[in-house]
């Protein structure tokens, strides 16, 4: 992380987010690698828990890299990080409720029409 901190010290009075191009190229490369991995999950036709956990793992890694480095969230102050990243966690409740509801609807439909 020293190579990231050093240019900031040099441009102490410079504006905005300044990081070496090298950092972006690295992240760019990593995003390509992880996209290829997630494509290969489909190409090799993995199934079940293995498929779903790999898809979610690669998705979260890619999302994390984009938000942290490309969108500079890693260098923002904690107040901004909390204000933006914490509220979406409410969505987990929505997703949970809709999953329960979806399962229930499937059960009633199966019972009523699908026999």
């Amino acid at each position, binding site marked *: 992380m020293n190579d990231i901190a050093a240019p900031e010290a040099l441009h102490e009075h*410079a*504006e*905005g*987010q*300044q*990081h070496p*191009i090298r950092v*972006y*190229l690295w*992240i*760019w490369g990593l*995003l*390509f690698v992880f*996209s290829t991995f*997630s*494509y290969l*999950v*489909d*190409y090799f*036709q993995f199934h079940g828990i293995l*498929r*779903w956990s790999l*898809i*979610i793992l*690669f*998705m979260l890694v*890619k*999302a994390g890299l*984009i*938000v942290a*480095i*490309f*969108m*500079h969230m890693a260098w*923002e*102050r*904690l*107040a*901004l990080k*909390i*204000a*933006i990243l914490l*509220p*979406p966690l409410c*969505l987990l409740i*929505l*997703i949970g409720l*809709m*999953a329960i*509801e*979806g*399962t229930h*609807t*499937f059960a009633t*439909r*199966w019972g009523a*029409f*699908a026999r």
Partner: protein
Amino acid sequence: MAQNALVDPKSTPSEGLEGVTADWSGDKQVFPVPWGKAMMWIFLLSDTFIFSCFLTSYMNVRMSTTAAWPNPSKVFSLDIGGHEVPLLLIAIMTMVLITSSGTMAMAVNYGYRRDRAKTTALMMATALLGATFVSMQAFEWTKLIVHEGVRPWSNPMGAPQFGSSFFMITGFHGLHVSAGVVYLSVVARRVWTGFYDRKGTYETVEVTGLYWHFVDLVWVFIFAFFYLW
């Protein structure tokens, strides 16, 4: 350090949770970033909720339907020399969007270095890649509507909810990409004409970048949940 912050607001801001309290308390601006950046983040937060609602409704209809869900791997495959390559078009679209995110990140960097030529070129490259993405999406929609006969209310391959979810989610995302291409072109033109040199700051380029990276971010989730699941 924290005590200094209370006595002298100009001193180094404290870090961690103490920093959060210090930032939110007192008669001062909470986020020490340009207002445009704070507002863009808040807009993107609201957009996160919109896309999440779409994806959650897609999850709900996919879980609740008793009809068979079409296999996206087969539906979105391309025929290359007699071989069916699964999801090929979608994989290329993903790579195009990631490449555009890379060029955008570098455009922001060169903007802060006041390199107008490189910033403009990289932003136009980003816009061009965005336009390529939308064109490929138009091709994909045409294939699905004309050749496969998928409609928002029906789908010859199985569950009709496939059509409605597909057009709703990818349509809304494609609209974001198209709007982003226009946004990028406008800002790139202003970079080229020296508007931000006269204004004295290139922060608008970073704010535009936030929007563009978000479009890429949403695609990561659509790719995972709609195309791969």
